[in-house]
């Protein structure tokens, strides 16, 4: 699964890093959109249920938490991407 951009693709590019890897997104993207258009998951469930990629996209389920350097834990669905953001997904399971 990757989010598919269907419209509004003529926005300026924004660069950020995900787990140290350089990534590109578009201005106005949420962190969730920025990550899930390029990769398949946001976090790993702490109770052994594998990878997660958010669920409700409206700030209710709390299943899209990622870490942002300088801000700590944020909800990816309701956090806008900004230039140079350094995002980490914590422990990555194989």
């Amino acid at each position: 699964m990757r989010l598919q951009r269907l419209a509004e693709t003529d926005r300026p590019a924004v660069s950020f890093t995900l787990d140290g890897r350089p990534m590109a997104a578009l201005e106005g993207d949420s962190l969730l959109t920025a990550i899930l258009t390029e990769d398949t998951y946001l976090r790993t469930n702490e109770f052994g249920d594998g990878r997660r990629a958010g669920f409700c996209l409206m700030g209710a389920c709390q299943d899209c938490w990622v870490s942002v350097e300088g801000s700590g834990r944020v909800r990816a669905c309701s956090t806008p991407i900004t230039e140079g953001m350094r995002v980490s997904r914590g422990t990555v399971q194989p």
Partner: protein
Amino acid sequence: MSVVIVGAGPAGTRAAEVLIGAGLRPTVIDEAPDNGGRIYQRQPAGFHRVARVLYGFEADKARAIHETFDRLRASIDFRPRTLAWNLRPGLIDTICDGKARAIPFAQTILCTGAMDRVIPLPGWTLPGVFTLGGAQISLKAQGCAIGARVAFLGTGPLLYLVAYQYARAGAHVAAVLDTTAFARKAAQAFGLARGGATFVKGLYYIAWLRAHGVPIAESVTPLAIGGEGQVQSVSWRDARGTTHEVAVDAVALGFGLRPEAQLADLAGVPFDFDPVQHNWVPRKDPSGKTPVAGVFLAGDGSGIRGADLAEAAGARAAWSVLAARGLAVDAGAVARLDAQLAAGAAFRAALERAFPFPAKLAAGMADDTILCRCEAITAGELRAAANETLATLPPPEVNRAKALTRVGMGRCQGRVCGAAAAEVLASTLSCPVEEVGRLRGQPPVKPIPILPAEAA
């Protein structure tokens, strides 16, 4: 002292309009960066799609709500990006950009909206499964589809609407899987006369999807979402008992809506089980007044009635607030709103009957299916607790089950699993679902950072 409106969607906007008309300056709090609520959510700066593309048939209503809010903005103490995380007598605790602030109120109108009602099935926690509402937000607010091949699974008006919006926007809709028989039977049974515009639109979406070759299956029993590490398929059983599977990389899941009523709960408003909606709803009179002094309710957060009635209920609640403050009330305007709300209630009941919540599907969830996605607790663990302990320790209700199993104790506070957990518990205890009660709200209603208070 001020009137505080929580929620800047259709209900909150119309409430603010009435209050401002009476010379007040309400405070409006919303967690989102801008007004509009979920249904009329505004896209971020730099996005250019026109209202017709974003909101379809509802474009004129969306535009009217946005224009009203923009016109009133200077008369509102508007606090976007602000979470109302607790409600105490006369005070709403908020946090914005990491800064906490308690906002006092003489009266508050809670317009806190709704979210998808979910029934778990095997594989529903895989990356690529989102709520129907979430799928819609991705498209409206971000211009993105949740996947390259998307299945829409569940029931309710949103099922066909979002599938239609996806297909119109150029997404590949692999299947629409409805647990009810809406498209074939209910549409005929209820017809255009009784259901009003909502049914007409629903039938249009179905006809459009069919005309564009989108497979629609009705009366389905969802079986599983398959995949390793991400969604790869969805399977279901049809009414004849035949099993089907389709390859997809994303699933949008939802079975109607449930109120986000945590603040009303914290305010001490009693709740009643509404058998038509199959939801617990905070108690209010037709004017939006609750049994708790100073607390008023409007919109889907006070029971699911849809956006049009949310506008009417918001305005109506504002008139109730004005009456409570001893200010003049326009009897003609109130009578019109009351008539609109009464007529709308009949439409809503027809809609709920057309898309009944498949409670048996939730109650019959397989033992090894994850029920609580926060902490990966299965339906079987809840059943075991019910059989071993709850049956002998009255009252056998969901808050006790939560203490024993942690179902509903995770970070979402039971927003996602609560409805299904109640069905599993009730069926295990062989009692009506209303007898197991509802998960109580707890402050903070969403996780907030805890910081030590600064020394004075």
